């Protein structure tokens, strides 16, 4: 179904998922404007928002099913399999986070149903970011996402940590936006274009110039911040720790996924001609990110903080596939993000249920002896840890396998080795979690009495854990899907007219 993106009707059609979600966000907003008093309102808002994600997903599916593709140049927004896959990924993450949030918010006494519209707007921003075909859309999508997430991070206003997290995220985020914007400006200066394809064609036709290099460098800085690559990572642990737990899950999986998807698209469509220039940068980022993330995670006692550092390390692993700059790399990013998000959602889902109302974050010692009280929860969390570790039989292993495969096929051997060294280090902090839950006795008899595992979260986590195991041994469907989808990323190769 070719869509003329330059026409308003075509643009509307192309933006259908985002529009549906925005519209639904407004609907929910309308609802909460009058109903924001008690837990029931919270539940209803949450349920409504999930319906919105389903609608948006349906819209995405419809576009994908109809084989939507741009007629001529894809203005502003991309219309390819990669975008649909990205949208699906982001929508599922958002929906899962919404499900996890429902009871958690009520338990923590955060009775502000605006949470759900904000989550939806953040999702819209993520979808725009990941689907952008134009630097302007990219920037705006990024900002929509960022602003919403700033708010969400500080949503638990009664806790100082939450406010602090929001402030840190906001200040450093705005700072990073400045760099990204400068990069966009210089890229624009070097080519006179904002459109990905046109810029890419321009770069392909001319040798790299000073302005182009600086522009690209600054854009990379902006992305490096969003994906929390070292040394742009310092905000992440603090923010992850301070933010409400479901939002931490959202940031660790969704925001990071959106940034990575956008990065892959930008590098594939905007800067493919400069690959020899950006590869060393990605290399350095990946190497140091993996090492620092894994090493620092070793000395953490708070679960959220540990997972934050582990998220940094995983960003490093993902950069391997970015380095590969190939169809396999793109597919690997998709698969890994899916694997990672499934795992992280499940892990945070379990952690959220263990958290006591208004209490500090869950520490490693709080998990001791969990198995004897909550065997399934601890088995689930153990599986999550193994998946994060990249243990065979879990989806995380397939993801890691694919990443390594992509990097190695692209001829990179050092990074995989570093990644594996990192993985080897990571066992030093994943294993103690399993150990504490299963092998250690509970500190006190009442240790785990406050755990509440609400049914929605239980179902969501259950599905995630099952998916981790199932996709760990039978990933064919998603593999095939990702591989075919990824190939569509760079199908439009527009020649640029002589200037």
């Amino acid at each position, binding site marked *: 179904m070719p869509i003329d993106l330059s026409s308003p009707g075509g643009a509307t059609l192309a933006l259908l998922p985002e529009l549906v979600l925005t519209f639904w966000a407004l609907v929910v907003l309308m609802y909460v404007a009058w109903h924001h008093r008690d837990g029931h309102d919270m539940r209803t808002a949450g349920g409504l928002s999930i319906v919105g994600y389903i609608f948006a997903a349906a819209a995405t599916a419809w576009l994908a099913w109809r084989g939507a593709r741009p007629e001529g140049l894809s203005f502003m927004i991309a219309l390819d399999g990669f975008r649909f896959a990205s949208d699906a990924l982001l929508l599922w993450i958002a929906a899962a986070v919404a499900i996890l949030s429902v009871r958690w918010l009520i338990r923590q006494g955060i009775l502000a149903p605006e949470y759900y519209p904000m989550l939806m707007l953040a999702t819209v921003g993520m979808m725009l970011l990941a689907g952008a075909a134009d630097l302007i*859309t990219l920037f705006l999508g990024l900002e929509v996402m960022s602003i919403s997430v700033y708010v969400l991070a500080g949503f638990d206003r009664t806790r100082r940590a939450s406010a602090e997290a929001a402030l840190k995220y906001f200040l450093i985020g705005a700072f990073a936006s400045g760099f990204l914007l400068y990069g966009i400006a210089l890229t624009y200066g070097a080519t006179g274009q904002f459109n990905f394809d046109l810029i890419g064609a321009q770069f392909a036709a001319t040798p790299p110039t000073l302005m182009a290099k600086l522009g690209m460098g600054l854009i990379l800085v902006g992305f490096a911040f969003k994906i929390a690559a070292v040394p742009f990572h310092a905000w992440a642990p603090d923010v992850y720790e301070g933010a409400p737990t479901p939002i931490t899950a959202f940031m660790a999986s969704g925001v990071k996924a959106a940034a990575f998807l956008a990065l892959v698209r930008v590098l594939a469509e905007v800067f493919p001609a400069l690959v020899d220039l950006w590869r060393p940068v990605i290399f350095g980022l990946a190497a140091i990110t993996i090492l620092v993330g894994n090493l620092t995670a070793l000395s953490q006692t708070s679960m959220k903080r540990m997972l934050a550092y582990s998220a940094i390390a995983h960003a490093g692993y993902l950069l391997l596939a970015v380095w590969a700059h190939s169809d396999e790399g793109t597919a690997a990013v998709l698969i890994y993000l899916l694997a990672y998000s499934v795992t992280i959602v499940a892990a945070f889902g379990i952690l959220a249920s263990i958290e006591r109302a208004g209490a500090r974050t869950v520490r490693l010692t709080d998990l001791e002896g969990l198995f004897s009280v909550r065997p399934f929860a601890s088995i689930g969390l153990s599986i999550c840890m193994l998946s994060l570790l990249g243990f065979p039989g879990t989806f995380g292993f397939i993801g890691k396998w694919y990443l390594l495969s992509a990097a190695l096929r692209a001829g990179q051997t050092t990074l995989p080795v570093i990644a594996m060294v990192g993985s080897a280090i990571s066992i030093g902090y994943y294993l103690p979690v399993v150990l504490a839950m299963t092998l250690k006795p509970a500190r006190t008899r009442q240790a785990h009495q406050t755990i509440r595992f609400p049914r929605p979260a239980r179902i969501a986590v259950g599905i995630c854990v099952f998916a981790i195991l199932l996709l760990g041994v039978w990933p064919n469907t998603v593999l095939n899907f990702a591989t075919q989808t990824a190939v569509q990323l760079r199908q439009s190769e527009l020649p640029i007219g002589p200037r």
Partner: protein
Amino acid sequence: MASNVTVTTVIFYVFAVWAVGSALLCITRSNALASALWLVSTMFALAAIFVILQAQFIAAIQVLVYAGAVMVLFLFVIMLLNLEDVPHDWKRWPAWVVGVGLAAVLGTTLVTLHSYTPARLAREVSTMPSPVDPRLVFPEGNALAVATATQGAVGSVAQPLFQGYLIPFEVTSVLLLAAVVGAVVLAKKKL
């Protein structure tokens, strides 16, 4: 033409010095209020430079929206919080040295952009063998002057904004929505 350029250049540099000086003061004043006012000053200087660079409409918004509305918001908050004047803690001098040093290194990298002239940019952008004529390479830049002349400063911006850039324009509405809801959620006293 030549003398005209010279006069413009002189005015440009006057405002440039103004902008840099204000910016310096903005980042060094220990009083937040003073910083904010010096920032406003910088913005005015920039607005003037925008005019020189043929962006009259943007210059107007700069003054109205930016210097006018946004910065007033800042001043408002600063006064609302009634912050005390915190003198610089000179024990933090290593932070200053590192900060200024890093900025200097970053600056030396970025200031190399000074070497760009229209001719150089044209040469770099062109896919044709040199020599190249910037006017041929940048038809839209010339078209901008023509459009400004025919449609006025606002019209030359407005027309593409509501046509080619419709999607981003709509996205800004989402952005503002998010900002409004977010600000309300965060700032209101009671949830």
